[in-house]
């Protein structure tokens, strides 16, 4: 084994190199997240289709996606998908990562939406009906505005969890900070400093996000209930 000891020269040499990947890492996280937030709705509404067989298929597809490692899904989309005759086509690494991680996390997001929707009181649906709302308006004006805010802290947690999974994309060649650190390490035979930098970047970005989410949680809960601030503090920590 060949040990490299800590060197601040290497650290400051590696820092700008690794930071070149920051835009991609953050960009990929945000894109994946937006994809998951949107696609989560697709799962939620597919699951509400009142057909037993269809419901069963959707539920098990979600379960399958959730119980398979995201790395496998990433490899599948990037390497295996293009080889399937007829339907397959090649995607660039970034798009593959968005699809792979986005779909994976959309199943969790879909579950969160579902829990939010189920938490809306039955009386709200009945009042919407009594006031003769259309189905679309009922969702837009009454159900979702009540279902989504309470889930925002949970959705925020998934943002951070997902952020931490994004380095997986380096394995299919997405040039985020992880790939940059690896490349630097291979070229200079110095892994300690660049990987430490990656760690620090994640800490520096995750921690404020977690604090922000906590703030959002309190804000969401007190939005139309002055007494709820207390309740949200008891509900538990972020992450």
């Amino acid at each position, binding site marked *: 084994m060949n040990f490299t000891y800590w060197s601040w020269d290497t650290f400051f040499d590696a820092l700008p190199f690794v930071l070149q990947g920051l835009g991609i890492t953050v960009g990929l996280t945000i894109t994946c997240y937006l994809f998951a937030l949107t696609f989560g709705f697709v799962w939620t509404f597919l699951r509400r289709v009142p057909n037993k067989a269809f419901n069963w298929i959707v539920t098990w597809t979600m379960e399958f996606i959730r119980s398979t490692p995201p790395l496998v899904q990433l490899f599948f989309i990037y390497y295996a998908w293009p080889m399937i005759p007829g339907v397959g086509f090649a995607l660039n690494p970034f798009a593959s990562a968005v699809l792979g991680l986005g779909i994976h996390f959309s199943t969790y997001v879909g579950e969160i939406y579902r829990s939010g929707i189920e938490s809306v009181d039955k*009386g709200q649906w*009945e009042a919407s*009906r009594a*006031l*003769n*709302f259309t189905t679309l308006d009922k969702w837009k*004006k009454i159900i979702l505005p*009540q279902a989504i805010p309470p889930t925002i802290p949970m959705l925020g947690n998934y943002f951070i969890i997902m952020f931490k999974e994004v380095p997986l994309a380096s394995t299919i060649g997405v040039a985020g900070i992880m790939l940059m650190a690896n490349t630097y390490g291979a070229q200079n035979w110095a892994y300690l400093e660049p990987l430490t930098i990656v760690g620090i970047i994640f800490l520096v970005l995750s921690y404020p996000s977690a604090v922000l989410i906590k703030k959002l949680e309190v804000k969401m809960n007190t939005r*139309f209930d002055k*007494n709820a601030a207390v309740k949200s503090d008891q509900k538990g920590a972020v992450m």
Partner: protein
Amino acid sequence: MSEPIVKFQDVHKSFGDIKVLKGINLDIKPAEKVAVIGPSGSGKTTIIRMLMTLEEPTSGDIIVDSTNLWKMEKKGKMVKANEKHLRQVRGDIGMVFQHFNLFPHMTILENCMTAPIHVKKENKEEVRERAIQMLDRVGLGDKLNNYPSQLSGGQKQRVAMARALVMRPKIMLFDEVTSALDPELVGEVLEVIRDIAKHDDMAMVLVTHEMDFALDIADKVLFLDEGVIAEQGTASQVIEHSTNERLQGFLHRFRR
């Protein structure tokens, strides 16, 4: 005699194996105030929920303003009504629930404005004016920008009434609207209903356990028992002079 605005014709309702309503026949005239009384579990709520289209009858017909509520004509045959048909008929009906069901994410004024604006596509300024008038009428003109969570139960229920009234229904349904309230708040809510009943010319169906109140405002009282209308007539006939034993037993329990 004017045509009834609501007709129940041999309406039955079962939940699974449980037969809740066993042949309801009922006429309600426009502007008529009908009180429905009866023991818990006798199907009072179910009757008005069917009228509000929250529950589908198992058999029979409900006619609202000459239109069959749950059935529509398609290629010369009567088939189960679709949502479009239900929406058309439902527009004439408003309901106040036992547990208020106000929209917690909206202010009181917004609660009263959202349906006229989004459902009936009315002019926003006109609706605002009307909503404020209505909230004034139920005594909440000074709480327009409060959220429901900041109100007492009695206040919430009065908002719920204003919210239904702004839609200008021809038929208003009240399902035990005071039974979730603390006793000291019941009076203020009954007062508002009394005011509506005396001054508005819509039909009203009230499920209630407030016998004196029913006696005061109802043109007709129905005693529902074991899935049928066991007794009906004017308030004084039913509440004060009936010889029906089960009704007397029921009233005896309530008038103490």
